[in-house]
């Protein structure tokens, strides 16, 4: 998507990651700002299903034409799904970072961590 957008149903981490929290699970990805800064993504290397991700720690790498960057987990939990379609079409992270460009799904180990994240308005303000 060409224009900046930060959906209101997501929670945001200052390292430009989002979490869509649904019950005890969350879908994670990178924000519009992150994909715009990275430039065109050419490779995504996700974690293993069953592994643990820890809030504020890197759990995966995205490679763009500019650089390889760590992806930081906004919340902690066990990986229950990895977006396999990104292997052939990593450009989905640029084209649609919140829907088809999602990265992983986790089972939350501490749902209260979500309270530390920003809402859409606070995150957008942090980018100014």
């Amino acid at each position, binding site marked *: 998507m060409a224009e900046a957008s930060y959906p209101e149903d997501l929670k945001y981490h200052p390292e430009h990651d989002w979490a869509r929290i649904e019950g005890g699970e969350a879908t994670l990805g990178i924000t519009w700002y992150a994909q715009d800064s990275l430039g065109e993504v050419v*490779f995504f290397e996700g974690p293993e299903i069953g592994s643990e991700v820890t809030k504020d720690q890197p759990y995966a790498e995205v*490679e763009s034409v500019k*650089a390889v960057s760590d992806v930081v987990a906004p919340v902690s939990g066990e990986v229950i799904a990895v977006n396999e379609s990104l292997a052939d079409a990593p450009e989905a992270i640029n084209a649609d970072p919140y829907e088809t460009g999602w990265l992983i799904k986790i089972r939350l180990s501490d749902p209260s961590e979500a309270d530390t994240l920003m809402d859409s308005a606070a995150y957008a303000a942090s980018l100014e």
Partner: protein
Amino acid sequence: MSATTLTETPQQADRAKTIYEKSVPGRRAAQLPPLGEGINETPIDELIPAHLLREQPAELPEVSEPEIIRHYNRLSRRNFDLDTGFYPLGSCTMKYNPRLNERVAGLPGHAKLHPATDPSDAQGALQLMYLLQESLSEITGLPTVSLQPSAGSQGELAGLLLTRAYHDDQGRNPTKVLTPDTAHGTNPASVTMAGYEVVKVATNEQGGVDVEDLKSKIDDDVACLMLTNPNTLGVFDENIAEISSLVHDAGGLLYYDGANLNAIMGQARPGDMGFDIVHVNLHKSFSQPHGGGGPGAGPIAVSGRVEPFIPRPQVVRNEIGDEVFFDLDYDRPKSIGRLRGFQGNFGVFVRSLAYILSLGGDGLSEASRLAVLNANYLKQRLSEGRAGKYLPVAFDRHCMHEFVLSGAPMKKDLGIKTLDLAKRLLDFGFHPPTVYFPLLVDEALMVEPVETEAKSDLDAFAEAIESILEEAEGDATVAQNAPYTTPVRRLDEVGATRKPVIRQQIA
């Protein structure tokens, strides 16, 4: 030739053929005269034993001499190089390579020496290597130099293998190597290759190592800190003495990435700053041509505590009575061993020693002073006008040999990215600076003008940037679609990374 489009030049549409594709069966660049009267042809299997003969002829290109000359001349004209124009590629020290070095390296005694020659028949070559070792030792302020590593990257790996050998010898087994987040990408790569874990250290507001962050990460599991000083932001780290004692007190070694040595030759010495291991890129500071993976050298200089472990053999100078004899010393029981066959790329050593001797100590000091002066002049020029507005300096203070600008305001206000500016610079006859490095500067543009460029070149470069920014205020698409005048237009870098074609398809 196929029809060209607006996004392709005629040359781009007509893909460059390889020399193999130009091959025509039976065509020759040279013809041997017929055998004279009474001379008989000897069958090849009488000259070469059967088990060494090929079963199939080698697939060599069959072309005429003019085709060979035109093919390579055409390829060379498609390049932008130091003989073409200003090449301010940051962190690469693209200085002009004096022709004198080439002449000296091409002398038959240098160029035709067989690498297996016995030391007694290669005294001149060994003396030359010894002199280069001594020169680099003086420049780096460390007592011992090994010329074995054949690239900067191999120098880094050698340095980390030395680090491991040093700790092993003390019965220790630390597992971590610290690198600042501004480090060259090769640093963490070498660390990983040597089997260590990379731990990143943050950068402070002045662009140097964040000493508090460093303190929080130092313990007895740290094998080494790898540092470039001045660093990749072009900033000299004034806390180096404190950093050095912090690492040494924890039992670790200090590694100096010599990539930025061009800023401090004859001014400051890594050995005096407390570094234990330095690799020197002869292709940067010492005017060896940068060559796409071609013959190189990345000598390492080491402190006394690391000396027992350096690669062998080492070139040594022995005195027996009045006789001086240069030799290869294999008697180094703690050595990490050989890093390559024979003694290194000798022509590289000749060029670098020729450069060092022709400038002399004063000349090298002046080269560094001018490299720093040129960088500060250009930084000042680019802080004025539109460049100052759209391309602010990251970490604005006196720089060393290079500086980093951020294209973030340019991207936001004009809609052109650092990559677009870089591509448009090609149309003005300049090689672009390094882009998107270091990573911690948004839309980074890293400029290293080096000492061999005149003030008029620097002014012309600053004016080109001003013109491009002015042009983009009116029409951003000009830069977005650049370049227009190069042999090939904007390349599909994303496609090349996502779907690389690593083998040319022969039609």
